[in-house]
């Protein structure tokens, strides 16, 4: 999907402003909507479509099934949820009611009216559904979340007139549904990972014929994919784009490429959410009286969400189910998930990447592997040299050995330059003295609690000091402090209204690449992921956005001002679920595609390694 359909659709719009969340801009929106006309069709188009095919049998219908794209009361879209049979297959549809059903005349409801149809689900084959999560909060409305095999999820459907029980009862008659072992509120649909279950289902289910029908038509990912992946809910490990196009090629009853539509739909829906977020925040501040109620509602929503987060965690990574999810995390990214995290690169896998001379044959595949799983600790010493650009991927063992010898000599030469500066020389060499003082001061304050650097007179500390000083001497213009120029998550508007646009609260994240936010082991993994530059050389910025998005509900709900926000973000240290943050960032990166890349201002420092025109790290030698 990255750089593909999404970007193609957006390119039809006018030039982009430098704004990471601008894939929600109206113009792009319109372009995307135009490109995916059938998803945006109104109720009447459904009927028209039906004329052309076989008749349908509606077996379930419920009014007042509502989407809450915003927490704002006026932003609700009420509609009709239906299950129907067509040509032996079961489909789900949701159509918004015509006209605004809220009495509000605010601009936000106008906006909703304008875009409400983008939420329409015309005919979703149940064979595409991975699971349905049912929520029955103590306070508030019951709702369900439908998650597709591709990993996409639709926004929650709230049942104002009840009817969830009937819905499941109806579903059970036509498709194979089982309760998840991990979470009693999760109902797995079409879960054929277990052959025994599969055969049992054929005995038990009256609707199995339609299922088989659907399966033969779809012949895809979740059913034929490896058992492991399916089990872990990671069906689209092989890439959203490929699975979608695969899906598309099999969907013969649709006229245009549904893979394309599906991805555009995701983009649309995602952008709709971000747009609503923006609108909500702006109206929130116009209407202070409503703010408190909003906060309360938010709170309930959060409580509820915590449970679902926990579930999600368990579902995706059962092996980590014992790790409690961060208590502060609250705001899930609802529409797209990043892929399942992989295990670290093993020695065997690493060896398999190398040809007999020691060249890395497929560097892209290697970087992909590291992006998704990191590197086994014993390999770090070796693999990091490639990731960081010290070694070329296509260099041989012999070439590397030679290069290393040269580099060592170079290092010693530069080191002797500053070592030979006498105390009297240093007195007249202010810049050197200052720099040395700074490094001396910092070095003793670096990770001294990590055993490697622990204790007084630790040789490793001396080595680190030497390295830093030599490096700073070699690359004298490398600033110690680099600010991120611009970063625009969907919270942009809220931040603007609260004078938080300087993003100082993200400063530490970016400056030291999340070093203080995670444990030492976690940070090695994260840095490897960043160094791959696999999806973006600015992946760390997406990570910032992903983390902020997770907490958007709280930030806005609690009306955090600059001080509170800064404190809140600071205190997230040690609380962030790294795997999930990476997955979220990956999803954001995929959704933003090239638009994401183009809205990051030129000159924004990438994460290491820093590539320059002349290759990695080549910089004019400005020593003295």
């Amino acid at each position, binding site marked *: 999907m990255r750089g593909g359909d999404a970007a193609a659709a957006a390119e039809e719009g006018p030039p982009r402003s430098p704004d990471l969340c601008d894939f929600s801009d109206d113009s792009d929106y319109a372009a995307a909507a135009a490109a995916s006309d059938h998803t945006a069709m109104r109720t009447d188009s459904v009927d028209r479509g039906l004329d052309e095919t076989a008749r349908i049998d509606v077996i379930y219908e419920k009014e007042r099934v509502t989407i809450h794209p915003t927490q704002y009361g006026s932003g609700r879209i009420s509609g009709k949820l239906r299950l129907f049979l067509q040509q032996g297959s079961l489909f789900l549809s949701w159509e918004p009611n015509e006209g605004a059903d809220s009495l509000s005349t605010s601009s936000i409801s106008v906006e909703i009216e304008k875009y409400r149809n983008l939420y329409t689900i015309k005919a979703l084959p149940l064979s595409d559904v991975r699971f349905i999560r049912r929520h029955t909060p103590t306070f508030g409305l019951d709702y369900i979340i439908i998650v597709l095999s591709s990993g996409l999820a639709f926004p929650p459907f709230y049942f104002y007139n009840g009817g969830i029980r009937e819905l499941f009862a109806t579903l059970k008659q036509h498709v194979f549904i089982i309760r998840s072992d991990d979470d009693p509120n999760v109902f797995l649909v079409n879960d054929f990972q277990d052959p025994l279950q599969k055969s049992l289902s054929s005995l038990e289910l009256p609707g199995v014929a339609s299922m088989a029908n659907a399966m033969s038509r779809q012949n895809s990912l979740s059913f034929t994919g490896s058992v492991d992946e399916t089990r872990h809910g990671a069906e689209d490990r092989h890439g959203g784009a490929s699975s979608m196009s695969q899906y598309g090629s099999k969907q013969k009853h649709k006229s245009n490429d549904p893979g394309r539509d599906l991805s555009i739909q995701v983009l649309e829906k995602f952008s709709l959410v971000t747009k609503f977020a923006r609108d909500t925040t702006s109206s929130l501040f116009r209407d202070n009286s409503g703010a408190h109620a909003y906060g309360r509602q938010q709170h309930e929503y959060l409580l509820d969400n915590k449970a679902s987060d926990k579930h999600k965690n368990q579902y995706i990574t059962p092996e980590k189910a014992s790790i409690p999810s961060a208590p502060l995390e609250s705001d899930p990214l609802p529409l797209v998930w990043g892929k399942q995290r992989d295990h670290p690169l093993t020695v065997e896998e690493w060896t398999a990447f190398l040809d007999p001379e020691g060249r890395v044959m497929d560097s892209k595949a290697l970087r992909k592997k590291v992006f998704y799983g990191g590197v086994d600790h014993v390999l770090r010493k070796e693999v990091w040299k490639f990731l960081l650009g010290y070694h070329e991927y296509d260099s041989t063992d012999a070439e590397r050995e030679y290069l290393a010898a040269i580099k060592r000599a170079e290092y010693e030469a530069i080191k002797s330059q500053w070592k030979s500066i006498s105390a009297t020389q240093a007195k007249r060499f202010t810049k050197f003295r200052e720099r040395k003082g700074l490094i001396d001061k910092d070095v003793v304050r670096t990770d001294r609690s990590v055993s490697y650097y622990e204790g007084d007179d630790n040789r490793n500390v001396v080595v680190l000091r030497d390295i830093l000083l030599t490096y700073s001497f070699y690359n004298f213009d490398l600033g*110690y402090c680099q600010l991120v120029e611009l970063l625009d998550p969907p919270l942009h508007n809220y931040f603007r209204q609260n004078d938080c646009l300087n993003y100082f609260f993200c400063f530490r994240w970016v400056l030291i690449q999340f070093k203080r936010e995670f444990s030492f082991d976690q940070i090695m993994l994260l840095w490897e992921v960043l160094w791959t530059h696999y999806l973006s050389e600015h992946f760390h910025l997406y990570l910032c956005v992903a983390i902020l998005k997770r907490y958007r509900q709280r930030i806005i709900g609690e009306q955090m001002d600059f001080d509170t926000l800064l404190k809140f973000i600071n205190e997230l240290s040690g609380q962030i679920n790294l795997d999930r943050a990476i997955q979220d960032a990956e999803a954001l990166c995929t959704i933003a595609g090239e638009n994401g890349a183009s809205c990051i201002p030129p000159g924004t420092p990438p994460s290491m390694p820093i590539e320059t025109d002349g290759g990695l790290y080549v910089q004019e030698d400005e020593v003295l």
Partner: protein
Amino acid sequence: MSYAYLFKYIIIGDTGVGKSCLLLQFTDKRFRSDHDLTIGVEFGARMITIDNKPIKLQIWDTAGQESFRSITRSYYRGAAGALLVYDITRRETFNHLASWLEDARQHANANMTVMLIGNKCDLSHRRAVSYEEGEQFAKEHGLVFMEASAKTAQNVEEAFIKTAGTIYKKIQDGIFDLSNESNGIKPGYTVHNSSGGGAGSSSQAGGCCS
């Protein structure tokens, strides 16, 4: 925990003068010689009692490095008190005080109480700034002055509490408009006879009750 007031403090001064150590000593009664370099800002909080009233100090420990200046300037907003720290063993940290005060003047509330602290007074054998110089500088600029040691805890408690006392006095004198949080003072929601909630009324909020 309830409090009568919340005061926002910031700690400022050159890198390595011991800002984070002063905070750690005040909040945790601990000393670490190898404190991690502060990036941006760190937070600490403690309750103290002034005039039988519980007061919560929310302390912003800022990064001292010159490179972070543009960022630390954004932290002054809404601070009721500042601890301006130098290292008595490093002359340059004393020489830079004026520029820190200039930052404070430009970015902080005009009523902010500034306490000047000459830290590391346990290292008096390596002293590069005399007590008198510190005292003189404070006098010239209208600051409260103290030498302290985060290592031995000497005067640490006093520095924070004395600053709070000065702020409290200013509240009593009606200098602050407590309806405006940019003062760095938030009236709490404790048993506070008449004007507890405080947001609406002005300076009488803190002054009245016993």
